[in-house]
C-alpha cells in the first residue's frame, strides 16, 4: 500500500515535470497557476496521509484499551490515510478544480492544515489553518467546534461511556487490588475529561493570526477603501447571495424567482439550514471530532451559497479517512453511480441550456438537485454507519466484560 502510494506520488511529480515543459511554450501565467495549484494538492496529500496515520493510531489505542483487538484483522492491509490521500489525488473533481484554475485547492489546503494541527495537537498550526480558512471563505468558521473538541479530547475514539463502563467493571471485580482499580478509574476518568489548556492556547493563537491577517488586509485595502467595505464585499457577498449565475448548488434557482419582499427571510432560512445542524451533530458526535469535521465540511459544501466541485473534492477525500468505521455503509454503490452520473450529466445539461438553447434552466437545476440529494444520502448514511459501528463496539466490549467477569 505504501509502495503504491509513493509510486502514485512519483507519477504525479513526473506529470508535473511534463506539464512544466509543455506549459513553458504556452502562457506563462497559466503555467505558474497550474504549478501552484498542483503544489497545494501535493501538500494536501501529505497532510491527509499524516492525519490518517494519527487517526489510525488513536483508533488502535482505544480499541486496545477496550480489549477489542479482533476488529482490526480486516483493516491491517489498508492504511486509511493512504487510501484517503489516493482518493483525493485521483478524484476527478480535484483534477477539474485544478485544471479550471480555481482557488479551491488553496482553501482545501488550509482546512486540512487546521484539522491536521488539531489532530496532532499542534495548536499554532490549527489556529493558522482555521483563521486562513475562515478568511478565504466564510463557511469553515463552523469548523471551530470540531477543532476545539479535537484539541480538548484528542482524536476520534469510541464513546466515552465504554471506557467508563470498563472502568466500573474492573472496579466491581477487583476489590482486593484497590490500587490497580483506583489507577484504572483515574486513568479512565482522565480520558473522559476535557482539557482546557490547548483550547485557551488555540484561542490565543487564532486571535494572533487573525490580527496579523487583518492588519495585512487593512494595509492592502487602504488605497481603495476601508476594511469594512472589504468585509461587505467578501462576506457580505457570500451571505447576501447577490449574484445568481447558475452553479451546482441549490440557491441560485430559488433566489432568481423569490419575491423581493421575502428575499431576506429566505436568505436567513438557507443560512440557518447549515447553522441549526451544528449543535445536534456536535452533541451526538462529540467523541469523534474528526468525523464531525468531515460532516460539517460535507454539509457546508452542499448548502453554501456558491458551491463548487473543489469543495466536494475535499470531503470525498476525507471520506477515505474513516474506512474502518464506514466499512458497512449502505448504498455505497448507488452513491458512486449517482456521483458519476451527475458529474457527467450536469455539464451536458448546462451546455444544452446555455449554449445550444434547446434545454432550459430546469434541466440543469434537476442535476443540481440530484447532486444535493446524493450528498444528503452520503451524509445521513455515513453518520448512521458510524453510529452503528459505535453500537457494535459497545456490544463487543459489553460481551468481553461479561466474558471477563464470568
Amino acid at each position: 500500500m505504501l509502495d503504491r502510494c509513493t509510486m502514485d506520488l512519483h507519477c504525479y511529480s513526473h506529470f508535473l515535470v511534463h506539464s512544466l515543459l509543455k506549459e513553458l511554450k504556452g502562457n506563462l501565467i497559466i503555467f505558474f497557476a497550474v504549478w501552484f495549484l498542483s503544489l497545494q494538492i501535493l501538500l494536501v496529500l501529505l497532510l491527509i496521509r499524516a492525519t490518517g496515520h494519527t487517526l489510525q493510531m488513536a483508533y488502535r489505542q482505544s480499541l486496545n484499551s477496550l480489549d477489542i483487538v479482533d476488529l482490526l484483522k480486516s483493516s491491517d492491509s489498508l492504511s486509511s490515510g493512504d487510501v484517503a490521500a489516493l482518493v483525493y489525488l485521483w478524484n476527478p473533481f480535484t483534477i477539474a478544480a485544478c485544471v479550471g484554475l480555481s482557488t479551491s485547492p488553496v482553501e482545501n489546503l488550509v482546512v486540512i492544515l487546521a484539522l491536521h494541527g488539531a489532530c496532532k495537537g499542534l495548536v499554532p498550526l490549527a489556529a493558522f489553518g482555521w483563521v486562513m480558512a475562515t478568511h478565504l471563505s466564510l463557511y469553515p468558521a463552523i469548523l471551530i467546534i470540531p477543532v476545539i473538541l479535537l484539541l480538548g479530547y484528542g482524536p476520534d475514539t469510541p464513546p466515552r461511556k465504554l471506557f467508563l463502563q470498563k472502568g466500573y467493571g474492573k472496579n466491581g471485580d477487583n476489590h482486593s487490588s484497590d490500587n490497580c482499580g483506583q489507577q484504572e478509574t483515574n486513568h479512565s476518568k482522565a480520558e473522559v475529561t476535557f482539557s482546557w489548556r490547548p483550547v485557551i492556547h488555540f484561542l490565543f493563537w487564532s486571535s494572533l493570526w487573525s490580527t496579523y491577517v487583518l492588519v495585512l488586509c487593512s494595509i492592502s485595502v487602504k488605497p481603495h477603501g476601508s476594511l469594512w467595505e472589504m468585509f461587505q464585499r467578501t462576506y457580505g457577498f457570500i451571505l447576501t447571495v447577490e449574484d445568481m449565475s447558475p452553479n451546482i448548488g441549490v440557491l441560485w434557482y430559488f433566489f432568481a424567482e423569490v419575491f423581493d419582499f421575502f428575499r431576506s427571510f429566505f436568505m436567513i432560512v438557507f443560512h440557518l439550514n447549515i447553522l441549526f445542524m451544528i449543535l445536534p451533530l456536535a452533541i451526538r458526535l462529540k467523541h469523534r471530532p474528526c468525523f464531525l469535521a468531515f460532516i460539517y465540511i460535507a454539509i457546508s459544501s452542499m448548502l453554501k451559497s456558491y458551491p463548487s466541485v473543489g469543495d466536494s473534492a475535499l470531503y470525498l477525500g476525507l471520506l477515505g479517512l474513516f474506512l474502518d468505521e464506514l466499512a458497512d455503509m449502505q448504498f455505497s454503490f448507488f452513491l458512486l453511480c449517482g456521483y458519476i452520473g451527475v458529474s457527467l450529466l450536469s455539464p451536458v445539461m448546462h451546455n444544452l441550456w446555455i449554449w445550444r438553447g434547446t434545454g432550459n434552466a430546469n434541466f440543469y437545476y434537476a442535476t443540481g438537485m440530484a447532486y444535493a440529494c446524493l450528498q444528503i444520502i452520503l451524509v445521513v448514511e455515513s453518520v448512521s454507519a458510524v453510529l452503528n459501528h459505535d453500537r457494535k463496539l459497545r456490544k463487543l466490549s459489553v460481551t468481553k466484560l461479561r466474558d471477563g467477569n464470568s
Partner: protein
Amino acid sequence: MSIFLLLFIDNATAYSSHSSSADTTKHTNNWAVLVCTSRFWFNYRHMANTLSLYRTVKRLGIPDERIILMLADDMACNARNKYPAQVFNNENHRLNLYGDNVEVDYRGYEVTVENFLRVLTGRHETAVPRSKRLLSDEGSHILLYMTGHGGDEFLKFQDSEELQSHDLADAVKQMKEKRRFKELLIMVDTCQAATLFNQLHSPGVLAIGSSMKGENSYSHHLDSDVGVSVVDRFTFYTLAFFERLNMYANASLSSLFTSYDPKTMMSTAYYRTDLYHRRLDEVPVTNFFGSLKMMIERTLIDSDVQDPTSHIKTKDQNCPFTRTMNTFFEKVERIEHPDSLVNYGLILMLPLLMVSVWLSS
C-alpha cells in the same frame, strides 16, 4: 444638460456686422443634426454610420434633447436582419449601436427634403413637437452630418428625391439671418461629397466631405455574417479618431481633419475653411462633437485629508486604544508601496508558522 463655459476670446478682426455680432456672442450650447437619407437593406452601412456618430456624440456629452436623429429606414427591426434589434458597425460585433438608449426623431418616410429643410430653418407647422425642432439660438454650435448616396451637387433622399447644393446653401443662409447658429460644421459622407457645399456663402460655416468631385466614397468592409457592408471608410476613420477621446479631451479640429489619409480612405477628404474665421488648431473637437464643460478649480487634496483625522484626534484623545488606532492608521496612510509590504507580510507568514509550530511541539 449643458453647463455654461465662460471662456470666450474676442476676435478683433474687422468683418461684416453679422460676423462681428456673431463673434461677440457667447458659445452657449451644442446641437447635432444627424441625417441618414438611404432606404433599403443594402444601405445598412448608412444607418450604421449615422448611429455610430450618434453614439459618439452622446458619449462625448450632447444629450438627446439637443440631437435630431433622422433615419430613413429601420435596419434594426428589418426582416432581413439576422440580429434583431442590433445594428453593428464592425464585423467583430463588439458594439451594438442600437442599444437601450436610441431616440430617433424622424423615422422612415418622415425623412424628406422638405422636413430636413424645415428642421434647419425652423419653419414648422404648429403641431410639430419640440423634440422634432432644432431649437438652437445664436450661441449654438451645430454639427450637421449627412450620409447616403450623392453625386455632383446633390444628395439623394429615400431613392426618390434630391437635396441640391443650392437648396442647402439657401437654408444655411436663412439660418444665419435668423441667427440660429454661431458656428456650423457640415460633415458629408457620400460620393462626390465636397460638391454639396460648393454654393455655401454664409460665414461661420466649416464643411468637410469624404470625397471630391469625380471620386466615389467607398465602404470599409463587408460583414459576411450580416450580409452587407457595415460601415463607410470616412465614418470609420472618424470613429477611430473619436474612440480614443473622452469628454475631457482637447484634440483640435485640425488633428481630426488631417487624420484622414487619402490612401487608406481611397478618396480625398476635402474641407472648406474659407468661411470659418478661427484657426482650426485652436478649436477643440468637443466644440461640435461634445458638450460644454465647466472648469472647476480643485484645491489640494491634502488639506481635505488632514482635517478629519485632526478632528477625530481632538475628540478622543483620552482613550488610548483609539489613540493607538489613529497612529496606526496614519502610519498606514503614509506607506508608499502597500502592495509590496503586503507581499512581504504574506511570505513572512510561512516561517512564522513553522517557528511557532516547532516551538510549541
